């Protein structure tokens, strides 16, 4: 299980970093979303990966091991925040598209540079 989780975190992070470095707002939003997924799994695994262990519910039960509840609470908070931020960023990206006339992160007029897009306007 460990190698699968770490591979998933690694691939998500790498894809997220790559997409975040793109020059258009949509890949950037996607990249940030993937990064948020990666960090959520990462946080979750920081409570150590356990299978079939009870949560801390019963005071009297004598359990040697239990699954750590704190990372789960952290992940819930992180998910909500990342979700809200992504929604905000999408609205902002749409606003930028409307006001700047294109979806480049710097609002540049790149149409003259790429020949394939000529005439689309």
């Amino acid at each position, binding site marked *: 299980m460990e190698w699968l989780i770490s591979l998933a975190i690694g691939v998500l992070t790498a894809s997220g970093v790559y997409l975040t470095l793109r020059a258009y707002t949509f890949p950037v939003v996607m990249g*940030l979303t993937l*990064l948020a997924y990666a960090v959520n799994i990462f946080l979750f695994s920081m409570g150590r990966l356990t299978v079939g262990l009870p949560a801390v519910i019963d005071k009297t039960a004598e359990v040697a091991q239990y699954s750590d509840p704190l990372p789960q609470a952290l992940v819930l908070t992180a998910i909500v925040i990342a979700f809200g931020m992504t929604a905000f960023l999408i609205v902002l990206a749409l606003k930028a598209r409307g006001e700047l006339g294109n979806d480049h992160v710097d609002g540049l007029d790149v149409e003259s540079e790429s020949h394939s897009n000529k005439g689309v306007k």
Partner: protein
Amino acid sequence: MGGIRLQRAISFLAVIGLVLLSAALISATSTDQYQVYLLGNWTAPFGIVLVLDRLSALMVTVTSVLAVGALWYAMTTNTDKKGEHFHILFQLQLFGLNGAFLTGDVFNLFVFFEVLLLASYGLLLHGNGRLRTKAGLHYVVINLIGSTLFLFAVGVLYGVLGTLNIADMAAKIAVAPQEDLGVIAAAGLLLLVVFGVKAAMFPLYLWMPSAYANTSAPVAALFAIMTKVGIYSIIRIHGTIFGSEAGELAYYYAPWVLGLGLITLLLAALGVMAARGLREQVAYLVLASVATLLIGVGLMSPAALNATLYYLIHSTLIAGAMFLLADVVLRGRGTYEDRFESGSCMPNAILIGSVFMIAAIAMTGMPPLSGFFGKILILSAALDDAWFAMITSVVLVSGLITILSMARTGSLIFYKVLPEESVPASECGKPLNRMAFIAVIGLLLASPVLVVFAQPITAFTEATANQVFNSAVYIDAILTTPAVTEESK
């Protein structure tokens, strides 16, 4: 816009109340006691704690004073009517800032960061505009990446130390096994990157000048405290966790802060010189002040921290005043806006120009105002440092560059002002809004006050610095605070 008067009244009363409350907080900390509040009555390290010490009280006070100036300016210039929900966002911003200054838990700090960031996104975009949207997009994206890195760092620290309470983390690091130290050090530096994004530290400052230059003036003035949140977090988190108790990792981050602070200062000075408009120039001046603070933090001695805190009060309030003043100039110059071109017509140019000169003297650190004393304190604290020659030359050379640039700005904008009769009224700016100008003067008054009352203020910052460096007492105070029982109520 129904009810804007009510919103204004509530908002303004709230910030006035905040000033009074933070004054009470300052006096409550004068006994060197830590005020610890256990949320939900869970004792540390199991629950979240709010901690009030001298440093927190100082930051909250500076924020509230700055907020009064910014809000007064927003109301008198009707900036708050340019879009919806200005006052709600403003108060949320203050809530996030105060929470970040008062929390004693790293994950709670993350949450308060998000609160203040989300409010700041709204405020930054308040009032629309093409450039504002573009700068806002950069600001939001870089801060989202910063938040992700924050979570990675917090995750690593929790995975290794098993706690998120700052005091408990410091106690755990002191006894951490040798093989964990590398991971902890890496997570600590990752946190430094996050706070570096907030504080606009080289090479993470590129979002900052355009964001600050393109937003509305009261928001930019309030944002003068936002960079200081990063500085505060470095002092609080790194200073406590990697403090003198941390064994091998004690102050291992300080050379990074010092070195990057020096580079930031040089680049900021060049930015001040190269700026094309007054607002951009002020943004780079804020960057220069942040860099000076980073140098002070990087020196890592009580004397240097004392100087840093003194300079922090000065630079926050004066930077706020400068942003408001830049907007006053912009409004007065009509079509010339704040571009560095001479020959505009500007009502009340003599009054605005005189105030600009005083503000520039304070901001660039020339005697007799507080910027000079702040820099002197930092330089004299650097005397014992191995990098003394480097620090002195960078601070002095960049100081000279900023003084020259500000002199050039002042002469370009104010020396060749055409009389109002000689140009058509449409090209001429609006007359001075005297009510709004009160906010500029009020914030600028902080500088002479800091000089006149330098003795009590430095006594307070000195006690603050000593308290910060005495992290053993901090750890002890928080971890031994008992839960409230029925009897003790």
